[in-house]
């Protein structure tokens, strides 16, 4: 710095510039493009984890055993996927990703979850009063699920020297609704390394 006058001019410029905002641009991307802005749990993590876990679920022997014993596809209901992490994870999106993968596999049948059921039951009840006899759906004719899929998402974070590690663990288990028997259990881990720019003085 040559002299204080230069310093003053810089100060004045900074004072003006401090009030200036930056413009925002929006770029549309495909929904399956991986965009990881903060290292937090995102749609890609949800989608990929669901796919990998469902692949494992379908490869395991419990479906074969069930088919052999019952000569039909197992009926599954999604239970609670608990968020035990330090982030507000939309576990419903993850549940839907799992549901989609399982239904599309054609290996299992799915019934509506407890949250979805209420609305459907209301509608069915109304049909008894307002719909024609031919089209009204019967009461007490729901398909009972054989298994419930439950899970937990947890996190463990660490940071050192400008780098943060975000460690996610997703645990899923399939439980037989009549016997409480756990027929399948799996765990998927995601580790993300996030670079943080260093502190500048």
């Amino acid at each position, binding site marked *: *710095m040559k*002299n*204080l*006058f230069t*310093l*003053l001019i*810089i*100060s*004045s410029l*900074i*004072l003006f*510039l*401090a*009030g200036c*905002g930056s413009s925002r641009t929006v770029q549309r991307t495909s929904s399956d493009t991986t965009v990881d802005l903060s290292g937090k749990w995102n749609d890609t993590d949800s989608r990929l984890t669901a796919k990998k876990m469902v692949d494992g679920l379908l490869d395991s022997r419990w479906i074969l055993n069930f088919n052999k014993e019952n000569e039909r596809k197992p009926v599954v209901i999604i239970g609670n996927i*608990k*968020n*035990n*992490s*330090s*982030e*507000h994870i939309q576990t419903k999106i993850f549940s839907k990703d799992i549901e989609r993968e399982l239904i599309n596999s054609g290996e299992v049948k799915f019934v509506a979850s407890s949250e979805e059921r209420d609305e459907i039951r209301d509608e069915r009840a109304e049909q008894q009063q307002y719909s024609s006899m031919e089209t009204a759906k019967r009461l007490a004719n729901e398909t009972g699920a054989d298994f419930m899929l439950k899970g937990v998402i947890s*996190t463990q*974070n*660490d*940071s*050192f*020297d*400008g780098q943060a590690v975000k460690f996610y663990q997703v645990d899923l288990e399939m439980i037989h609704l009549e016997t409480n028997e756990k027929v399948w259990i799996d765990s998927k881990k995601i580790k993300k390394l996030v670079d*943080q*720019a*260093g*502190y*500048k*003085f």
Partner: protein
Amino acid sequence: MIIIFNFKIRIISLLLILLTIGGCSSISTSTEHYTNIDKFVSLEMYDKAVVSLQNSQKDAYDEKDRVLFWIDLGLLQHYAYQDSLSIINLALADNAIEELYTTSISKGVASMVLNDNALDYSGEDYENLYINVFKALAFYRQGESESALVEIRRLTEKFVELEQKYQQEYRSLKESDEIKTEVDEISVNFYSSALAHYLSMILFLNDGEYDDGRISRDKFYDAFENQKELYNFPKPNLDNFLTHSENAKLSFITFTGRAPLKYEYVFQIDTFENLIVISILENGRWKEFNTIAWYGLEGGLHAKFAIPKLKKRGSMVNKVEVIVDGVHKRDLYKIESLEDIAFEAFKREEGIIYLKSLARTVSKAIANEALNKELDKQTDGGDWGGLTRLLTGALINATENADLRIAHYFPSFAYGGEIEVQPGVHNIEIVYKDRNNRTIATDKFDNYNVSKNKNIDLLETVFLK
């Protein structure tokens, strides 16, 4: 003649700059707008306080003050039972603090030339931590205990992140060319919040997760045992929370008082060769406070700088009683002194601000001296040169203001406690008493339905006096 004309222009420019920056929020903290909001807060008219704060946004808050605005707004909305809005604003503050974890280079330059008021306010450490407590309480009130627990876990993580941040910051200071003295690291003895553990225990019990509730209770006890300076009041016994009862359980969390504010503390420096003598003003006289080695420094420089210090506001409440259907059930116990924790957490930040401000003032004083020596040479030390020296000195002092930004609406103390009552409808009163055992205020919950369906119920009250 040309030289004198140039000096006139320079002096007029200096005067204009001095006048311009005198009222500029980039170098000083604006607090006038709080008067009106405080009036509503003291009357417990939190809805109106929210509106008053929102109305002052345009004039009192720049973009760099957004974290401060969101915290104050989120807290007032919490007290006004506007839980959804409170969560949004506190989350905005929380996310912005996380983003500001790294100071941007451009703003860093601004703070070196001006002062920390030019920087984005990134929240005091204790604000950063307690944001999550108030978000957790808001989520609980909305019936989202899973989200409330997410907030408590996030708070626990922040202790580790803050430790990392300061290690980086100290390393950066030690490596800085601007700091030509030894950098002493200050440690902070606050790494676990009893209030957060108390809340997580209730949330776990509410979900029927007794093992996790017991772990939280043990962590609550540990917070008292291992941080005795901060928890210098009797350790409450929370064992009753975990026992089975035929009655319904009702727990309380009560906030009283107002958290600390910042005030400006001014230092004067006088330099000698490789040495700075730092003085403070006591009873109208400058008194030597400290002498530190500063390598490569010449003597004869004089300047002032200011740093923020915390000032407690405390509470007029000495006791909080729970009355059910006209019968005294219990006194609530103190869980946390947020004001003591604010002081402890600020120790480290204060040390860093002191060093940065000192370095900045020394740089400005050196530049000022170089300029004035040049002017003296050109004017043979005439009147214009003397005036310029006076004005540039005033300009340096005008830019050296302490950053006094701090959230205004955190409480100073948290109390808790639990009672058992017959399930059903009750009239519940929370009575605030002063040191003379006089009732100052009462919060009433008439016809409150205490249900056995819930494992435990939580009632939150606030008295910010």
